[in-house]
């Protein structure tokens, strides 16, 4: 028998969409495609045996352009990640609030040494740990966890490279 949809289902989907919004789908998808296109074009131009070999200056100039593009992509991803962490924090705080209320209403239940609420609160003090913990698992069957893991991995790479690359780009631009 088919179960009727309820507001709870819709609210769960809203929370999921809020998590999905961590990386703007349009920008990221389009960005990766454009970067790949340009990369292929660059490779074709520089390695085509029918054309005369490019000068080192041209190669560096083209590579700098590609770096520019990747930097922008990474910067955006990092900015979206920061925004999402704030949202996650807010969502998490709301959940902790309701858990507190629940525990207060049921004092007879023997509490473990460290309560779930405390764990969540501690996790929220360290947003990155919280993201890794995936406190609100995806409801999409099979691929949901994979999507979340991929995104976390991407964000970590993004943060790393943004810091690493930003300081190096301008000397290249000046070539």
């Amino acid at each position, binding site marked *: 028998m088919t179960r009727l949809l309820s507001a709870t289902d819709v609210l769960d989907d809203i929370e999921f969409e809020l998590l999905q919004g961590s990386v703007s789908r349009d920008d990221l998808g389009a960005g990766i495609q454009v970067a790949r296109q340009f990369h292929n074009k660059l490779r074709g131009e520089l390695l085509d045996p029918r054309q005369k070999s490019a000068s080192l200056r041209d190669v560096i100039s083209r590579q700098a352009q590609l770096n520019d593009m990747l930097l922008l992509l990474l910067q955006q991803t990092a900015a979206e990640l920061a925004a999402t962490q704030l949202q996650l924090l807010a969502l998490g705080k709301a959940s902790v609030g309701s858990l507190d209320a629940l525990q207060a209403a049921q004092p007879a239940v023997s509490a473990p040494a460290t309560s779930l609420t405390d764990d969540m609160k501690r996790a929220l003090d360290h947003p990155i740990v919280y993201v890794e913990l995936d406190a609100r698992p995806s409801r999409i069957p099979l691929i949901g966890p994979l999507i979340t893991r991929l995104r976390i991995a991407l964000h970590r790479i993004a943060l790393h490279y943004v810091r690493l690359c930003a300081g190096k780009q301008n000397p290249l*631009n000046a070539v």
Partner: protein
Amino acid sequence: MAFSVIVNTTDRAGPLRALLRGLEGQSYPHFELIVVVGPTRDNTLEVLAEYAGRLRVLRCPAANLGLSRNIGLLAARGDIVAYVDDDAVPSRRWLEQLAGLFLDRRLDATGGRVYAVDPLRAITQHLIGVASSLAEQHDVRESPLEWMIPSTEARLWVGRMMGTNMAFRRRALLEVGGFDPLFQWVYDDTDIAVRLANAGKVVQPVKECVVYHIPASNRNRIAHTYNVKWWIHARSVVYYAIRNGRASGDTGGAILRRCLRYVHGQWLWAGQLRRGKQLDAAQAARMRVMVPWYGLRGAVRALLRPRSLIEPGEARRAADMSTFPIHPFQNTDSPRQPSVDPVQGHRPEILMSEPPVRVALLTTHYPPEQTEGIGRKNNLLARGLFALGHGVHVIARGETDKLSFYDGAYTHRLAMRLDRYDSYRRLPRLHYALNHSHRVFETLRRIKLNDGVQVVDSPVWQVDGLVTAVSGLLPVIAHLQTATRQIADLQRDVDEDARLMGELEQALIERASFLVPNTLATVETAQRVYGLQPDHPNLRVVPHGIEPVPDSATRPYPLDRAADAPVTILYVGRLEKRKGIADLFAAIPKVIAAAPQARFVIAGADNSLNDGFLARTSRTYPDWFAERHPGLLDRVAFKGQVSDAELAMLYQSCDLFVAPSLYESFGLIYLEAMNFAKPVIGCRAGGIPEVIDDGISGSLVDPASPGQLVQAILSLLRTPARLREFGLAGRARLLERFTHIQMARAMVEVYRRVISQSSASGA
């Protein structure tokens, strides 16, 4: 970190006033203001005199932007110099966000998004620009990755800021010699970005740090037209390409080709503009002659003369001025100054006792395009809030994404974009509502970041604020009005879509920080339909209000009118079952039979398609009436949907207003009639009895009772003294209880309470 905000202005006193007033509201107070005035011919200096002692006024001998920018730079004392155009107003947190960016010591230059405040133009005028060493530039509007790598011959592409929104570390700007005065109007911003990049400085434009731009005319262009001195562009482009192309290692051939192509392109474009009638023959001919000539002049200047930058010695002396403290622009009154209309520069001439509240109003429809109930009420609320000095952003649905400033509020219109919540595609109302609610959330996130919006005011109807309430981004106040569940019951329209919308309305009510019903009847309905607690702690009834027309515009019934003179009875509202149109149709023949002088005017769009009448009868409401009562058509006029101006005229010219709605949570239409001193007849349903004083300002009848309606109309028509007396009493009641200012005052109390609760809970 101290800022020097530099404004370069010539002949734009009006927009400059808006900017100066807008800068009073900046959330980051550590800035001085330097205004560099060109050879002005208007009252710019008088406007600046109002701020004597708070800003520095410098003079530039020529209308030359590059030169003017350098004069400001040399006088600046802040660590960061921020440039904003005189026809723009920065968002409240502009400097605060820039300060955050410049905490990174590697950053030397940045700038943010520029919104065009114009109902006819694309919302984003500039997002992140990219420019090449050969003067190719793209203002990226949709995605920052669009156009990122244009395939051209240029060796260098860098991010660039738009001149109306750019900030620099002062020392870095002085190190490269400031701006090049050759750029008297355009390309100054792009040139400085390329030169900074070539000097190894970090130039990084960003997506936020918003400035609202209201393009004004100047000596080189007439705003919103193609009547522009394009030849100044040509000279700048040729000069730029030669200078920066050579500095960036572009080949001579590439530079030459770029210059020739640009000039040729402009030459051809002159023809296109002429054919499109955007330029007249003389303007097009002048453009064709001047563009190559100015291009040549730019080339000669680039090849034969050095750049006229700030001398290194002078730059060093200016850089040492950082030891002097800045004299801040803001004073102790600034935080309590009212909000400003960025287009006209108006603001209420009051000093507020507390800082203004910054609120976002959500609405499905909004004037001037749409004038339905919630949109009209929100428009009145926005006007009332602005009149009291508060800052308002309205987020409404629209055909395309647009931003304008309308009736005291920044109005963001969001187009329908169904790219989320695919699993609900089969439920169109829900699917649309969720997608729109999510877009509202994204817009609010941006407005909060840039303008510091503190609270969201959302109708429960259509759940626009649901995603925001779930996210916890901002506290949401829910306005209780007519409920979807109730209408679904009235119109027998309870499918899964309507059921879920009803459940989501309940979810929004549960998640809202505060509830604002418009009448006690709405509270009772919400208790019945949504299980609202009787003693809800966060609830306050705030009735709607409207803007009173002047006394001279009211038209009480004239007692000296002849007994057999025509009497006009007006109905306003959609033609649908809930509005009681069927009862009115049943009453009309009987009223006319008993009072042949009666004339009916029916204004409102036919909604027979949505309420099932069309399916049942195969007729629209007007067609159905015409078919049944062909002999009455000379006494019953169907006006359809009318404009605000027409509506006001209809109210003014009627003698009696009748709207027998089966249910209204409030009934703004009765207030609109009372505004013109007209007697009103409504039903004892919903909030209508709280608006109409039965026997004092009008008459009440039972819902769905055409007989009572006939009696009420005839009773009033037979006693002209009561027509006048009721009308005047209604007008007095409106002035006493139902003005938009009273509504706004009550809402401000609610907003302040919610903001303080929200701050206390750390949300």
